[in-house]
């Protein structure tokens, strides 16, 4: 306790040394207030309410009954909940590398200051601007067997002799979605990496070249280490985004076949909005929150360890 007080006093002294005055605090608070109010209103309150609801049998109409941890017990004994968690984790593991690798290659191709390069950057970024639902529908039609354009092109080029059932088994559906998501989101990751690339001094790279470093060596020993903050950011976003995957599964597979592509958010959605199991879906949301917190902390800890 004493140590904490000392730390606070130390921090206060620090701020005073930097020219802090009490009346400045009000101005600062006024600037911060709108953001804090929005976060509290749209995130803090729903989050708290969700946590509260998770301890209740919460019908749409009628009395709400406190049932303690029953919703949590139900989640832990619900085979579909665990299947969904498992599938979502698997999907995240599968989809993250292709997104990152594609984005990294696109970044290396477009970071050169050549005429017209901005056009390529825009082209690579455009899929990210499309809505996920629209993208999913476009790809669903492209994957269509036997009328989809992908099968048509592959057949025309004599690469395949029979149409491929892209959205069919759990594995094929997952691969199809991974391809679509890589196309859709790599541009965004590329932009993050490009932003990082802009911050790398050309002198450093030139000095390495003068010293005889090949492009590959410059990439491994200079570019990647200097990009690690941006790599960390892009991976955190990608992992969390994949763990919260919903739209693409909702549109392209409906969680099928036979629930094989049922992600955890889709299962929560089903329980909340189709089955009206509000308390139960709230409990699953809280569990998902805990899992995501754990993953993100571990991820940032690991990636943060690479920093100076």
């Amino acid at each position: 306790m004493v140590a904490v007080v000392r730390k606070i006093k130390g921090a206060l002294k620090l701020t005073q040394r930097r020219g802090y005055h009490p009346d400045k605090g009000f101005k600062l608070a006024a600037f911060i207030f709108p953001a804090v109010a929005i976060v509290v209103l749209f995130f803090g309150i729903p989050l708290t309410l969700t946590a509260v609801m998770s301890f209740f049998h919460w019908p749409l109409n009628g009395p709400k009954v406190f049932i303690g941890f029953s919703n949590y017990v139900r989640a832990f004994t619900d085979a579909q909940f665990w299947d969904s968690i498992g599938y979502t984790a698997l999907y995240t593991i599968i989809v993250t590398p292709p997104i990152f690798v594609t984005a990294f290659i696109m970044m290396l191709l477009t970071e050169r200051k050549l005429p017209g390069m901005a056009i390529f950057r825009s082209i690579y970024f455009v899929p990210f601007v499309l809505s996920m639902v629209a993208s999913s529908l476009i790809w669903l039609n492209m994957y269509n067997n036997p009328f989809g354009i992908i099968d048509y092109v592959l057949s025309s080029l004599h690469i395949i002799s029979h149409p491929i059932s892209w959205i069919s088994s759990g594995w094929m559906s997952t691969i199809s979605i991974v391809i679509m998501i890589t196309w859709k989101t790599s541009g965004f990751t590329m932009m993050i990496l490009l932003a990082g690339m802009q911050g790398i001094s050309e002198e450093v790279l030139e000095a390495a070249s003068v010293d005889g470093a090949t492009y590959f060596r410059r990439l491994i020993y200079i570019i990647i280490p200097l990009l690690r903050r941006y790599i960390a950011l892009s991976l955190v976003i990608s992992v969390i985004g994949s763990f919260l995957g919903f739209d693409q599964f909702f549109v392209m597979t409906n969680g099928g076949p036979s629930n094989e592509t049922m992600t955890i958010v889709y299962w929560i959605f089903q329980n909340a909005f189709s089955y009206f199991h509000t308390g139960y879906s709230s409990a699953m949301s809280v569990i998902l929150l805990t899992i995501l917190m754990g993953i993100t902390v571990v991820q940032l800890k690991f990636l943060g360890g690479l920093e100076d």
Partner: protein
Amino acid sequence: MTGQWFESAVETRLHSFLLIYDTTTKISKVQGGSKVQKKAQNIMSKVGVVSLIAVTAASTVACGTSNSSSSGGGVASQTVTLWVRTGTPLPDVVKLFNQKLKKQGSKYTVKVVELPNQDVPTKFSAAIAANQVPDLISMDVVLAPYFASIGAFKNLQSFYNGLSMKDQMIQSMVNQGQYKGGQYAIPEDADVSAILYNKTLFAQAGITKPPSNWQEILNDAKKLTDPAKQQYGYVYPGSDGGFFMFTFLPYIWANGGHILNSTGTKSELNQSSAVDALKFFQKMNQEGLMEPNASAATANQVTSMFENGHAGMIGEGTFMVDTLDTQFPNLKYGVVPIPNADGSKYGSFAGGDEIAIPAGAKNPKIAEEFIKFVLSPQVQVDLFAKNGDLPVVKTDFQNKYFDQNTAYKPFLTALENSQVPYTTQYNQLYNPVTSAMQDALQNKGSAQSIFDTATQNINKILNSSH
């Protein structure tokens, strides 16, 4: 709607990530400083990480809590609000009703709010929670038992008893509006299922009459299937639970089986009459008479195949008559009721809409007047039948509009043989039945074992209390 909302939440979250992460990393990048300063930076960094996670989770879990309705709730005293799903004929009814009210010098005006089908229960749930219900609500007939069971509807028993046409209404739809002896919702318009067949493809294949039993469907499908032309005998969307209910259950019903027992407390899918129907579909698929990858096909895909002449037969609803006549005038099609194995009986799903007055609605009297108007021949015949919607009053089945179009006659036969499963947990049945059909179409087991599993899963749902 849901997709757009969700996407905007995701985008907001991404922007929040960037902002928070950037702030935390900038703080952690400050070089030098005292130990206290570094600790402060560390704390700030951790706060940033926790905020980041909280923002993520909050925007995710918000989907379980916040989906408020901004339209229609809390009506003004002279405006009567009606919520409907898109695609129902009620907006036209409202126009006529408002004209009638104007002539009478009434102070009321009905305002219609159209919602996408999948949003109706969600928005209505939010309205109930916020105590801002509309004056009237029209919804898919299968949802009525659930909302009646949670007390979301006003009991209309005495109003129903006073209706002159009550004994002429489609009984299965009337039953859907009942709960524990009370009448909470009233049938509004009907939509039943039957088999649509492509007359041109039938003629090209040398088939002279439409199928009347399962063997004929199978034989015709064989003659109609030509993969080289991307043409298939019978198309079915395995990924669509709604299609299972609407177009496959009738095969089971026609064959004497049921998905649920009469009290809706137990599944009967594992009975032989239901299993035989699944075997029949499995056989058609195994013999390549269905489109490739039928287990994952969507409703839009197979409907589009039929509309564009790539399918010989498809199970569809009454609403398709108007769609095909207006948008695909060159398609020559016929309609037959869904038969049982030997063609001696028919089955059909009694779909459509029910109309109800939410509990706590502020203008029940004018709402009841509106329902009476919906059930009048002026609406049931001159509006619904004229536009290709089935009336719910049997005396209105015979009308000049249906007499002019032979496609409606088989639907009327289907209507007489129609059923709809009564359960307050209808939405939850989609998952096990879709999985069962997908397993069957992917040959993951025998029809018996697949329906045994589906029966267990459905019973588990029916026995759950949450």
